[in-house]
């Protein structure tokens, strides 16, 4: 077993004086997709933001063997972490090209991969990002993270509110990205989790309650019911995935 790329120990976080993450401890392996699961409001997004220092946090975060919990957000990102936020957060009044230019470090070494994954964005380079569809905005958001040479990606609900066909596109793109870079993924769509994740970490009330291989968790109906509040079998999980 190789050393984990990210080690989170006793991470807590607070938004506007309110504690949203209690004490979270987990590791992200140096390859593959690790899915961070749990019901709405358990602190998944806050955990990602806490790792990046976007909200007030405490505890230890080690990236590539180095402590990053005392660094400012932009330093953490510069050290090689790509972030795709919930709700995309593209700059609506900037063009697609400007959104990309803002994100690129060292000239954007993975430009070709991005162009290949999202050819649509090339055609719409001059368009204001605010006028794109939800799916296209998600592509911009993903492209902003993929264009750089990162050693870890934090991706928050990339399929939220997207049409099924776009979900497929996004999943494919994430699968491609995961071949090169480990990913910590927050995702509600269990089909996507099943297709991508190797490991799952499950949160409840700001604490980690389960860590293990993805299949083991997803196949255990008792666990998914208790921890995610979803009856997979009740509604007929569609079995194997692409």
């Amino acid at each position, binding site marked *: 077993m190789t050393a984990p790329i990210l080690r989170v120990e006793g991470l807590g976080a607070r938004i506007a004086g309110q504690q949203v993450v209690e004490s979270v401890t987990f590791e992200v392996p140096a390859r593959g997709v690790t899915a961070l699961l749990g019901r709405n409001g358990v602190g998944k997004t806050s955990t990602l933001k806490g790792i990046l220092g*976007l909200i007030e946090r405490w505890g230890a975060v080690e990236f590539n063997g180095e402590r990053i919990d005392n660094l400012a957000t*932009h330093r953490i990102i510069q050290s090689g972490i790509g972030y795709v*936020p919930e709700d995309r*957060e593209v*700059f609506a*009044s900037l063009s697609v090209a400007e959104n990309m230019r*803002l994100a690129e470090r060292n000239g954007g070494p993975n430009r070709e991969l991005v162009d290949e994954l999202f050819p649509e964005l090339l055609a719409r380079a001059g368009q204001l990002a605010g006028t794109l569809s939800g799916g296209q905005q998600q592509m911009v958001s993903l492209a902003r993270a993929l264009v750089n040479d990162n050693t870890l990606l934090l991706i928050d609900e990339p399929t939220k509110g997207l049409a099924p066909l776009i979900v497929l596109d996004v999943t494919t793109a994430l699968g491609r990205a995961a071949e090169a870079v480990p990913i910590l993924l927050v995702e509600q769509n269990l089909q996507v989790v099943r297709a991508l994740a190797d490991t799952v970490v499950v949160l409840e009330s700001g604490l980690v309650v389960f860590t293990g291989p993805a299949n083991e968790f997803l196949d255990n109906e008792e666990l998914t019911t208790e921890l995610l509040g979803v009856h997979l079998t009740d509604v007929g999980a569609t079995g194997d995935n692409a």
Partner: protein
Amino acid sequence: MSTIVLLIITGLGLGALYFLVASGLSLIYGLMGVLNFAHGSFLTLGAFAGLEIARRMDGASWITLFASLVVGAVVGAVVAAATEFFLIRRLYNRHIEQVLVTVGLALATVALFDGIWGTDPTYVTGPAWFSETTEILGAKVPNDRFVLIIAAVLVLLGIVLFLKFTRFGLIIRAGVENRSMVTALGIDVRKAFTVVFAIGGAAAGLGGVLASHYFGYVSPQLGGSLLIFAFIVTVIGGLGSLAGAAIASALVAVLQQFANYYLGGTGDLTVVLLLAAVLLIRPTGLLGSKA
């Protein structure tokens, strides 16, 4: 007719001064959410710096004027950047406290200017051409008005081009929209804060030197009195909107001139009434988005 032309051009000249103050206020507010009460002091300091240069050089030459403009802008920029770096930055995201610090700074600096330059106005003379007039459509327009208008247009153009074509401009435009996402792309947004303060300070310093020629004097109160109109202009134009500030500056100042001339010196009151009307009809200002 000639009176109307004179009033319009004089109004635009005054509007240019308002814009030079309001542009910085608007940029700073848009990016950082800080209402900068010390902005008037940047202007006053720029004016005094220009004055000191003029005293040391040949008072009435064009070179002196140019030098005082440059020095005024540089001093404004440096002091504004220092204010951001040493005071505002320490209170990151605590907007009320940031406003309070700029209030304290405004009080302290005006008192300091009183101590250094005295409370009485110091009179300023520019190149002889400034006090001459040019005839336009029968109106004898004092020449300094043109300089003011040209300067404001150049500043507006400069800021727009800076925002559009430089990397800092890109960061600032993105930061106005969503500051935390800018840092989440690995960019140190605080540098942009300092840059914005410096630009605002430069515009204010430039405005200070020009204001001293427009009014014919410098006093420690100069910045404070212009600042209040700049506030009104920013609210009417829409908080954080540069274009709104430009339009409102012209509108407010021209209206003020007309009211002063035709309604017996009620310009200032008319401006406040205009503000009240805008608030009633459109609380977010002319070009403001959601408050």
